[in-house]
């Protein structure tokens, strides 16, 4: 018998008989209608920066006022005058010197301000981690209240890699002092976009 079959046989022999069905997840009602407020509040608490904008022109204006010296990449066509496109088939190591990456978020979760992004949003998996600063553009109406709603949205969705990102990279490993910018992005700006 292979190791695999041995393990499975042992598990089968030792696992308890349990015919109880899986619990129902619909018992977690949505408690808030104020998803935008909650999302913005939570994001600020965890070190992120929410910025409400009407359209892409306002994002451009914001970046003009808050310039990032260095290489800026973006997967968003409307921002191509500010950023180079993300090279699709390049070696991910070539992104080492990216100062700011601007990508689209699929949706956000109010209870924890996590934003779901998949590689379809930004071509290269390493992008939101390797950049010094990360900005995510999120349509204002793409917010759900909690993680149960989030996974309802993800039901049946196909992705090779997807990630919930909540705020900048952080650590508290040194005497529990919170430091932003551990290995991933040092800051995270979220542009909440009114008109897509």
């Amino acid at each position, binding site marked *: 018998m292979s190791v695999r079959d041995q393990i499975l046989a*042992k598990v089968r022999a030792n696992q308890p008989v349990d015919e109880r069905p899986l619990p129902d997840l619909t018992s977690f009602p949505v408690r808030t209608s104020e998803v935008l407020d909650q999302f913005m509040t939570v994001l600020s608490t*965890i070190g992120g920066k929410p910025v409400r904008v009407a359209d892409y022109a306002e994002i451009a204006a914001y970046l003009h006022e808050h310039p990032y010296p260095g290489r800026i990449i973006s997967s968003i066509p409307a921002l191509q005058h500010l950023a180079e496109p993300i090279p699709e088939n390049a070696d991910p190591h070539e992104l080492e010197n990216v100062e700011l990456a601007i990508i689209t978020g699929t949706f956000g979760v109010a209870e*924890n301000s996590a934003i779901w992004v998949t590689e379809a949003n930004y071509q290269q998996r390493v992008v939101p981690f390797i950049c010094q600063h990360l900005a995510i553009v999120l349509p204002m109406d793409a917010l759900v209240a909690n993680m149960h709603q989030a996974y309802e949205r993800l*039901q049946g969705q196909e992705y090779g890699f*997807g*990630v919930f990102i909540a705020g900048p990279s952080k650590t508290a490993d040194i005497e529990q002092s919170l430091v932003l910018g551990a290995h991933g992005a040092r800051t995270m700006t979220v542009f909440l976009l009114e008109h897509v």
Partner: protein
Amino acid sequence: MSTKPKHPELSERFNADEPRVDWHDATLWWIRQKRDKAAHTLYEDWESLRNTASAIKDNVLGNLADYLESFERQATTNGAIVHWAADAAEHNQIVLSLLQQAGAKRMVKSKSMLTEECHLNEYLTENGIEVVDTDLGERIVQLADEPPSHIVMPCIHWKKEEIGELFHQHLGTPKGNADPQLLTEAARQHLRDKFLSRRVALTGVNFAVAETGEFVVCTNEGNADMGVHLADVHIACMGIEKIIPRREHLGVFLRLLARSATGQPITTYSSHFKSPRKGAQLHIVLVDNGRSQQLGREAFRNSLKCIRCGACMNTCPVYRRSGGHSYHNAVAGPIGAILAPNLDMSKNADLPFASTLCGSCSNVCPVKINIHEQLYEWRQELTRQGKVDFGKKMGLKMMSTVLSSPMVYRSMGKMGRWTMRVMPGMVSNSFNPWFKQREMPAAPKESFRDWYLKNRS
């Protein structure tokens, strides 16, 4: 019987420096309080989340073989390569052979308690492989040549001045500088270089979904992702109990995990790996190492529900005052004391005695493991097996060290008084040496939770 030092001696050593113990105690209690606050923000859902998580895990334990087969099938369809390891030695060999296949002599690794349990680093080092742990806390203990002392906060026992000195020696930071910001920045630069130059990255797994074959890795630092997305080969190692049935169940566990661990609403990154990056390889190693055996022990199988949040350690009056290393096991604290005897009863017979059986662990556990009851069960089981002659003696000594000095009681404050009030009811049995020594006050009428809600300031 092994002559390696046991929990009583090890905690005595830790207790030699009393102010340090007080500091350690207070730090963990502070994290416990953050957990409480986070749980209270979800007060309407919290208990039903715990019940749901526990019920999902019950279902997993009853159907684990089928779920494992489903996971393997889906993951293979997704393009991952699945390996099976019966024990630590097989796990280590598989990882080494994958490194050899890739022609790699160096590897980056993000946090994985399983690889600690298997002593992977030692094995790979002996075989000429350089392993760099990339979680900041893990890197610190690795540079200091120590194991982690906590499953979530590996260097919780280190003071920043000591880390400053360690980094001065290894990373060349200015002598005498203990600024967390500066030290973190130094580690960031040092590890970025490793991420950019290593071709193999190993990660742990927090949850693996039977339905889809994907798995989720949670970090705050982003180190798992930095390693994996820059490497040609991703090796993900997981215990077979990490399986959950469906993707939607992630919603339940991700709501509980970080809140229970550190009081955050969610970790910064919850990364869902389904298929390998174009041109890269994804290997998943499924490890048994005693888990199927624990599944067959009726009294202890619930320990396999553990999602490794660390809450039971942060709240444990013994862990807080004896330190993670006193448990001489990869997983310390109350849950470690249940898992360790399954792997080696003789070596770990002392651990179920490293508890007041106060039940605080069971009260905070997000998957509702009956931790303190299992500790009590182990005491009986180990006694039946004749493993505890030293236990009663040593157990007593440990309790005296950790809990009985007046200084300790003063500094334990509320928690100490609570322990005195709650403990006797929980410990009036012949398996608890502490009880024999003391005149115990009457047991309280209120539960821990009631007491806590009423008394927290």
